[in-house]
């Protein structure tokens, strides 16, 4: 089995695909950290699901399968989705989480209808759009990987240059605004990166699960560190590892889609973090409690001994 996967690695095409999935994991891990800390875990999910109708419409209008076109379609429908959420929360009594749920399901529903439509049309079979639900890394071509390189480079540079701004925005947006930072603009920039990540990730991981790759590595990384910089890097690394593992298994066993496998890999990392992370992990907590109890018992014993000592001495002096 292992040898089989190494022989697959020798295939240059697979190297490209691995590279693509690694980059995808890296950028979604990094940008996902900020989304998670800003309590916007659901936004990634909403954007991803909302991207589906945009992609379908882009395909229906042009009849070609090209990532840049899909990007535009997904971006536009993502924008409409976020705008809808804003309108719903501002003008009704519906809360943000419910609004996201509504928007997500409506857009996804429309997307599925359009997808079915496309597959029943003459050139629908070649479209490969059905793969967009759960993702198929193997369908990536060189230009897709180039696009991923470009996007991840932009995100890494932005997160490095604007680290201080993103940190302040995530921790205390009100204070950031008071200092004169254009909070709306920065928020939109993060949202834009989120959309970019989701869109380039859809082909490999699929609409349904790409959001999991945004949030799961971030949550796992949070377990290991109390420093934002470390967390962002770690989350990127976890994402990259998940992407690589998912792709390796998917290309070697051919039938399984990449998305679920990558997400399972990320979930494994997450499970490991919950259990074994220092200080925050379950094991660390249990050990600390046992040690703490031990220490308390020891000091209690000591006091008891002292008390007896005093009693004895009193009895002696009597």
């Amino acid at each position, binding site marked *: 089995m292992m040898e089989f996967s190494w022989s697959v690695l020798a295939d240059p095409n697979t190297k490209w695909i691995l590279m693509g999935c690694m980059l995808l994991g890296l950028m979604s891990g990094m940008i996902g950290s900020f989304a998670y800390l800003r309590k916007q875990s659901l936004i990634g999910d909403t954007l991803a699901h909302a991207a589906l109708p945009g992609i379908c419409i882009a395909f229906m209008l042009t009849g070609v399968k090209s990532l840049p076109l899909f990007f535009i379609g997904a971006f536009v429908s993502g924008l409409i989705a976020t705008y809808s959420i804003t309108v719903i929360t*501002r003008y009704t009594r519906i809360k943000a989480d419910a609004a996201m749920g509504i928007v997500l399901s409506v857009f996804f529903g429309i997307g599925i209808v359009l997808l079915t439509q496309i597959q029943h049309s003459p050139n629908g079979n070649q479209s490969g759009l059905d793969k967009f639900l759960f993702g198929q890394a193997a369908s990536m071509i060189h230009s897709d990987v180039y696009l991923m390189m470009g996007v991840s480079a932009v995100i890494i540079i932005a997160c490095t240059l*604007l680290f*201080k701004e993103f940190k302040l925005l*995530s*921790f*205390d947006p009100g204070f950031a605004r008071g*200092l004169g930072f254009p909070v709306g603009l920065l928020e939109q920039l993060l949202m834009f990166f989120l959309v970019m990540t989701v869109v380039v990730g859809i082909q490999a991981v699929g609409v349904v699960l790409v959001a999991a790759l945004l949030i799961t590595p971030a949550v796992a990384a*949070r377990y290991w560190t109390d*420093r*934002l910089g470390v967390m962002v890097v770690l989350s990127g690394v976890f994402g990259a590892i998940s992407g690589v593992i998912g792709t390796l298994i998917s290309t070697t066993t051919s039938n399984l889609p990449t998305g679920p496998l990558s997400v399972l890999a990320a979930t494994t990392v997450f499970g490991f973090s919950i259990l074994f992370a220092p200080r925050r992990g379950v094991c660390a907590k249990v050990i600390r409690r046992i040690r703490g109890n031990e220490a308390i018992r020891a000091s209690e014993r000591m006091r008891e001994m002292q008390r007896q000592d005093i009693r004895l001495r009193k009895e002696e002096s009597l």
Partner: protein
Amino acid sequence: MNQRNRGSEVSPLTVEGLTVAYQKKPVLRNVSFEVPEGKLIGIIGPNGAGKSTMIKAILGLLPRVSGETEIYGRPYKEMRRKVGYVPQRESVDWDFPTNALDVVMMGRYGHLGWFKRPGAKEREIAMDCLRKVGMADYAHRQISQLSGGQQQRVFLARALAQNADLYFMDEPFVGVDAMTERAIITLLNELKAQGKTVLVVHHDLATVKEYFDWVMLLNVEMVAYGPTEDVFTKSLLHQTYGGRLAVFDHEDEAILVDSR
């Protein structure tokens, strides 16, 4: 810089006809006042009176329906660096992955401008501010592992790092221990001694007379505003709090208990 302003008697803050609404309901109606320089000013009113809203609107964090505000005679946008802000402690998630020193350094971000990372100089300023609030030993502590009072002091240190002339503090005394309360009020008086002006949202009516030079009574509308001895009276407080106030007379001194 203070000297220049004092000479020309420009008020640190003037507010004219400020009205703010969430959705359609006004929560702050037509509030106007002028703040004298170098005073500690308590903003007092029941829950939901619009105290936080007023501060946020002045700082441009909320859109306003109408009204003008000026900081040292100029629009806020030009005078940001003269203004420091301590938000309500609950307004942020204290489980954020960062330490006390890092939070205090955020007070320097406005001075740093875009892209530049805080360096040794910012670190030094931040440590200095932590020292001033008695938190130097906790500089590298993850912020979720600080007590409520310590978190409040970190917020205060962050505002100090802004090195402003006019400060807004939203309920800095809520949920802090007696020692922290002492530390904060000492600090406020130090700021005052340096000619700085501080507006403080305050809840404990028992300490108002001791802490503040001026008082603003607010309940959606401005009820009263002026030197504490003129404004902090039983009848005006009744007017502000309505029936929600218990007043116990005690040798002419009104000791007041906020029954929120």
